[in-house]
């Protein structure tokens, strides 16, 4: 019984990470109808930046905030420089640009920061387990942080004027322009936010899986699965999906397929969702008129 409870809680903790990355993916998808294949690499790059800042002597939370800010700026820059020129291009071109971005960012990380696996510090008490051995300090802390970030993002989109404008720009760019919204900059902001959220996810997961340039690739897959499960055009759904995938992955890994095949679980979820119910649990079923 203890084992199951711990698996569930661990699943929720990792689920928080997946939910964050899934949210980042959905934000970009909603605005541009494209999936950012490079989201994971960007998050890894951000996490390395954080490590560099920490090693330079900055206190953890200062480095955290700085990294989030830098990641935001990088996200905006990437959108303006790379995505804007191909906004009207066909799908193949878009996919190609994302793949190119993945290659560049992923390899740049190795080039600049080296390929050896590094230890990334956790700001939470990791000695011993809390609540009678159910959850580690880091698991609790990281869950709280990711939930806080998700909540902030939700509040931003629901209750601020800028958040409303960004949603409008994603739903209906033409009408948005008619009310004076600078749609291009809304897209750039969306990218910035997604990059920032990804950075938080990276910094929360690095202490657990150790930091190296390929850290986020598997996580990206789980995030995809979560986003699809929840509905790729529904931020709420993506978050729920992310948590669900986290729990499913942990349970399946512990009791069904063994830890070596956990990625296949993500793959199975992706294929399953796309074949059975492509709009996910909470997404809109979009009918295309011929």
């Amino acid at each position, binding site marked *: 019984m203890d084992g199951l409870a711990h698996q569930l809680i661990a699943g929720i903790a990792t689920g928080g990470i997946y939910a964050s990355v899934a949210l980042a993916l959905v934000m970009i998808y909603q605005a541009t109808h494209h999936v950012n294949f490079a989201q994971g690499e960007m998050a890894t790059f951000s996490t390395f930046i954080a490590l560099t800042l920490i090693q330079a002597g900055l206190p953890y939370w200062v480095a955290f905030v700085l990294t989030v800010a830098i990641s935001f700026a990088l996200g905006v820059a990437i959108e303006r420089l790379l995505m804007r020129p191909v906004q009207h291009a066909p799908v193949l071109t878009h996919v190609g640009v994302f793949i190119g971005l993945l290659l560049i960012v992923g390899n740049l990380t190795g080039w600049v920061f080296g390929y050896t696996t590094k230890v990334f510090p956790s700001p939470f008490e990791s000695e011993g387990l809390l609540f009678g051995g159910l959850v580690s300090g880091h698991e609790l802390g990281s869950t709280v942080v990711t939930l806080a970030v998700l909540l902030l993002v939700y509040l931003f989109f629901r209750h601020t*004027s800028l958040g*409303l*404008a960004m*949603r*409008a720009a994603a*739903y*209906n760019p*033409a*009408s*948005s*322009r*008619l*009310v*004076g*919204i*600078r*749609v291009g900059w809304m897209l750039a902001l969306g990218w910035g936010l997604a990059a920032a959220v990804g950075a938080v996810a990276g910094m929360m997961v690095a202490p657990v899986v150790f930091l190296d340039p390929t850290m986020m690739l598997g996580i990206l897959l789980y995030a995809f699965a979560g986003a699809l499960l929840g509905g790729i055009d529904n931020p709420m759904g993506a978050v729920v999906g992310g948590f669900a995938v986290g729990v499913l992955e942990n349970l399946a890994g512990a009791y069904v397929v063994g830890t070596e095949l956990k990625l296949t679980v993500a793959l199975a979820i992706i294929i399953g969702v796309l074949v059975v119910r492509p709009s996910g649990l909470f997404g809109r079923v979009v009918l295309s008129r011929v």
Partner: protein
Amino acid sequence: MAALLEAEGLTAGYGQTAVLHGLDFAVEERGVTALLGANGAGKTTTLRAVSGMVRTGGALRLAGERIDGRATEEIARRGVAHVPDGRGTFMELTVEENMRLGAYTRRDRAEVEADFERVFGYFPRLRQRFRQQAGTLSGGEQQMLAISRALLLRPRLLLLDEPSFGLAPLVVQEIFGIMRRIREEQGVGILLVEQNASLALDFADQTYLLETGRIVVSGPAADIRRDESVRRSYLGY
């Protein structure tokens, strides 16, 4: 008196196809100009040209300032509110959110709230449906919402693309009645595109008749209303 909107030799098109072949027209301050014509004459394209949604040639002046070639959002920020064909409602957002978006670029909070009240005065039904998702509104209500969104911009120029389209006659009457009130109370210039010629002629001051991208008849609405031959040849009644 300088016109609010002036078009000189306006051309426009989609890709390789030219749709407008050199239009000259004007909307006076606080005046209503109607663009009439059959389907495919280029009426909607004209409004899109004013809003910068299509590539244009020639000159467009808003209160003397050139706006041709500018981005749509910049033109909107200069006080041009466009209610497009199909209404352009943000279906997934609530009525409230749609309206707030209309006022997105404004900084004068108190005035925005006053405008909300004024708009509810015109369209009380919107107050009832305030928190409802816009996609669930009826056609007539969506038209009201679209006009409200435009008014909340506090525009100098209002572009209306076929406000009567797809609406029951009673609803259309209601909307045009309100538009008369808006015109009197707000002092906004209106460029109206309508297929329903008699409605438009009742409402407008100045009229231009479009046929395949060219203006074939122009003049005060009252004159055109009286001119039987024009009405019969071009307007079908």
